């Protein structure tokens, strides 16, 4: 496998910068919550929540969301995907929710996540944070916080590795 396009150190630096930006924009907001999109959005959301809540008295709650049931392309998927279930153990009403995902591509995942989130409650506002924006959007969705923009071909494979899931941090791009 070729070396990573974004190294482990760079990934960690991007997460720190994302946390700083989230913290800056939501200063004084005690009702912040993070919701990660499964699977790799969840550990990212945990890392961000940890960094943002440093120095604050309140702990930022973290939820996990599986958007499988909300995808609009279920009919195009060759095999029925496993539904892993969503766990949001706090009240979303009136909160500022930061939706976290590892990568944004067509924007369909983010759209599905927004629909699902609104079925759980009525947050005051929703912001979107992603580690990597690889372009090729099909919907008018733009993240509020982006770690890095990577120029990729449409059929490139972008693998985001995180310590929690894969044992190492890094972003790999494979040409098909």
């Amino acid at each position, binding site marked *: 496998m070729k070396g990573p396009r974004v190294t482990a150190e760079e990934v960690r630096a991007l997460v720190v910068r994302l946390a700083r930006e989230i913290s800056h924009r939501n200063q004084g907001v005690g009702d912040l919550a993070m919701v990660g999109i499964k*699977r790799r959005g969840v550990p990212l959301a945990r890392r961000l929540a940890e960094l943002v809540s440093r120095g604050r008295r309140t702990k930022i709650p973290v939820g996990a969301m599986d958007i*499988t*049931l909300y995808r609009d392309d279920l*009919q195009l*998927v060759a*095999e029925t*995907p*496993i539904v892993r279930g969503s766990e949001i153990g706090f009240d979303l009403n009136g909160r500022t929710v930061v939706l976290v995902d590892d990568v944004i591509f*067509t924007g369909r995942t983010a759209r599905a996540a927004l629909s699902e989130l609104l*079925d759980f409650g009525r947050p005051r506002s929703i912001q979107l944070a992603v580690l990597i924006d690889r372009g090729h959007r099909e919907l008018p969705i733009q993240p509020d916080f982006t770690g890095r923009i990577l120029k990729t071909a449409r059929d490139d494979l972008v693998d985001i590795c995180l310590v929690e899931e894969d044992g190492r941090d890094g972003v790999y791009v494979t040409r098909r």
Partner: protein
Amino acid sequence: MSPSRRKPQDSVRTKQAVTKVTKFQCREAGNQSPMPERMRHLLGIEQLDQRQIIAILEQAESFLGVLKRPIPVVPALRGKTIVNLFFEPSTRTATSFALAANRLSAQCVNFSHGTSAVRKGETLLDTAKNLEAMRVDGVVVRHSMPGAPHFLARRLKTFVVNAGDGCHEHPTQALLDAFTLRQRLGDLAGKKVLLVGDIAHSRVARSNILCFARLGCRVAVCGPPTMMPRYVEQLGCEVFYQLDRILFEVDVVNMLRVQTERISSSAFPSVREYRMLYGLTRERLAKLDQNVVITHPGPVNWGVEMDFEVSELPQALILHQVTNGVAVRMAVLYLLAGGGTVAE
């Protein structure tokens, strides 16, 4: 042989070998079908192996989470239409399937044999063909004839779910029973399950014996000899005729309904005697270990299969079974109707 002269089954096999890779699969490499071979229909537990049963139960677990949400509806099957084709009366199963479809945003049409053209002599196949011509995506069928869903599955392009065929099978009931027991007891391997009552006329019994045996349980059945089918042990269970000899050794007691509509009056001398010999009576309850779990597919003939006191016990899971039924049926409908492009 030239490609154009291949046998039909060759082309089917070739089609099945093609795996379509989509963005979605690229995004989550682990997000593959839980089924070794994708289910086309759900006709019985007989067709399922252990892995498939567990996959359905695990799917149901996440759907139970959906049912607990403030808005318990997801758009997974939006645009799909499912017909509930019930040729026998049903409250629980028909409502459960209708709710499961609605919770997945599918449209569900309920067909009642009493008000249909069946009364004018329309055949099962005619009815189904007409429904298919209306472009439905799935048919949930209950019929008094064993094999009716299999008959339809061979002739329709839509998926077919068996919601009970005569004395043969009732697969979703077995799946929801297994789901409920796993919820309470965890892994079922090695657990002793006893089915009590009318084994011969119960489609639940057959499906449950197969399902529990495939999940690694030790299954026993107990009932009057007149209600015990011949060679039942070949399904993978032990046979008992005296309830008190086995009742106090098991982890689960699955009471079955006496199918009064399907049996002749000579099956047992009197309801009172049946209750004395095979009922979960107050006296037996007093002796039963409190950890023993009690299930019943419903509707219960109170005072026959079990005394009403049972319903008040914490180890009686009868209403949990009903709740879980919706989640399990959501999982079944989702797995059958979810992915649309798999080769058939």
